[in-house]
């Protein structure tokens, strides 16, 4: 399949310094056909091996547009490997990954570079650049991709800081990552991922290592990004409480395949043994289903 058309290539090209981010802005440049498709990413039968280790064994998965899609699974099941495939950071041994209808597997580096403009990624520990302050970190994608004036960049950075509840932190613009709290780092990481108005946001285990209050804050952050910026969210997680709090759709990766996919309520009723074990261990078992089901619907 040929590379995308020019209108698709730069869906997020900055416009006159207006800090976008309203729902719908991020998909403004897409081809109508792709934008109307409720499934933004289709993964079909991907296999991936590392030496003797067969990590992904024919994964089939649909990522719904504008929704919070969460992939759960135990440690070492290949969740992070799957996520890296979505951005083309890894290539599968076989199978297809269709992003807005385009197969990204045969793409070369230049085409993948264009594709990655559709994506933003929030890393487990934010992965902020130590040598750069908050403004430089957030502005990094803009500086690297476009020739914008300093004023334009600052306008967009400040708007994001305000919208992500970071503007009130005194002197945050000039702070370095080492001076920020864990939660602030995650928000700055999110701001960096959002600054170029991506269509798809990937979160790699965003609540790992956080206390319950911080976990709740990160959940709110993901909900806010999804609601306010209209992005498709893909979250890799093994935090079941958090997953059932925010997910629109949950898929479980088990033994290199997607074992089950559904809404939180559907998954609570599922009888798949590995999933039940996950749910029961998280204290969301059968006995709690009546109570858990209503709260399992996404809070919007």
């Amino acid at each position: 399949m040929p590379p995308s058309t020019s209108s698709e290539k730069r869906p997020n090209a900055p416009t006159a310094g207006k800090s976008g981010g309203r729902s719908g802005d991020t998909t403004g440049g897409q081809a109508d056909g792709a934008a109307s498709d409720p499934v933004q990413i289709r993964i079909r039968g991907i296999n991936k091996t590392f030496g003797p280790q067969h990590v992904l064994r024919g994964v089939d998965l649909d990522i719904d547009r504008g929704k919070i899609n969460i992939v759960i699974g135990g440690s070492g099941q290949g969740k992070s490997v799957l996520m890296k495939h979505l951005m083309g950071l890894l290539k599968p041994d076989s199978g297809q990954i269709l992003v807005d209808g385009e197969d990204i597997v045969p793409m070369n580096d230049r085409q993948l570079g264009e594709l990655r403009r559709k994506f933003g990624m929030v890393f487990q520990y934010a992965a902020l650049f130590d040598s750069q302050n908050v403004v430089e970190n957030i502005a990094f994608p803009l500086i690297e991709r476009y020739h914008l004036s300093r004023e334009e960049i600052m306008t967009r950075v400040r708007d994001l800081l305000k919208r992500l509840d970071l503007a009130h932190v005194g002197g945050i613009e000039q702070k370095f990552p080492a001076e920020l709290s864990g939660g602030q780092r995650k928000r700055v990481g999110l701001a960096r991922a959002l600054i170029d108005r991506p269509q798809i946001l990937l979160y790699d285990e965003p609540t790992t290592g956080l206390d319950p209050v911080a976990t709740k804050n990160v959940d709110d952050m993901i909900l806010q990004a999804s609601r306010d910026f209209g992005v498709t969210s893909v979250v890799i997680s093994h935090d079941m409480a958090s997953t059932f709090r925010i997910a629109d759709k949950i898929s479980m990766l088990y033994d290199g395949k997607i074992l089950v996919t559904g809404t939180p309520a559907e998954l609570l009723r599922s009888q798949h043994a590995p999933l039940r074990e996950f749910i029961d261990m998280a204290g969301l078992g059968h006995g709690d289903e009546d109570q858990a089901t209503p709260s399992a619907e996404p809070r919007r």
Partner: protein
Amino acid sequence: MAEASIDTTPRRRALAIGGLLAAPARSIFGFFGDHTLMLFHAFAWLLRRPFRLRLFLEQMEFVGVGSLPIIILVGFFSGAVSAQQTIRALEIFGQEHYVGATVGLSLALELAPVFTALMITARAGSGMATELGSMRITEQIDALTTFAVNPTQYLITPRVVASIIMMPIMTMVFNIIGLFGAYLYSIYLKQIDVGAFLYYFRYMTDPSDYLQGGVKSAVFGAALSLAACYQGFNVRGGAKEVGLATTRAVVAGSVAVLVLDYFLSDMLATFFPYRS
């Protein structure tokens, strides 16, 4: 269920033994191959847009300006101690006025390039390995890739190029300061005649000696930065592995400098024959 059996046929055993014997060779070739590829990629990315001048200047500042105090300190005492030992030896023959020429030549050809490279390996090389290693384990390098920024172009190329540019400059600084140390020691502590010191220095040394030192130091710059970048860039694990990578970077960089020095001296002697 089928029982797993171990194939003990002579052919299989011979293959296993052959594999074991070949493993070190494979490892050594892999090591040099990886370094060569990294160097090739670093230069290939130098020619491709975007050109981030700021990154090159930052690295030049780190490798060069940042190393200046240690280079001045080591250079001064290396020159002085070199003069001290040379005078001790030449005194036996009553030829101590040759000290300027001897120290000047040894600084230009060997001491300045090698000592500067070792100092920069210890200071800047270890810094590079630690920084890149930390960036690797905290996923900062992965983050670069997600922004469609090539990590080799962004991280490796500026460090290698900056080292190649700054090493000859720092070597020249070492030469000047070293000679100054030798001058002070010889003239003020050993009462060597100033005229003789300067005359024999000018008579025996030649710009081509400094050119040889400059060529050596540029190659050392490439080697030490490559060793540091390779170790840092390929860290897997946590803080402990970053520490180990830093140690390996300093050891590999220092060994590379000393081994290359031998071969470069031999090679450069062919291009710059001794003047009779």
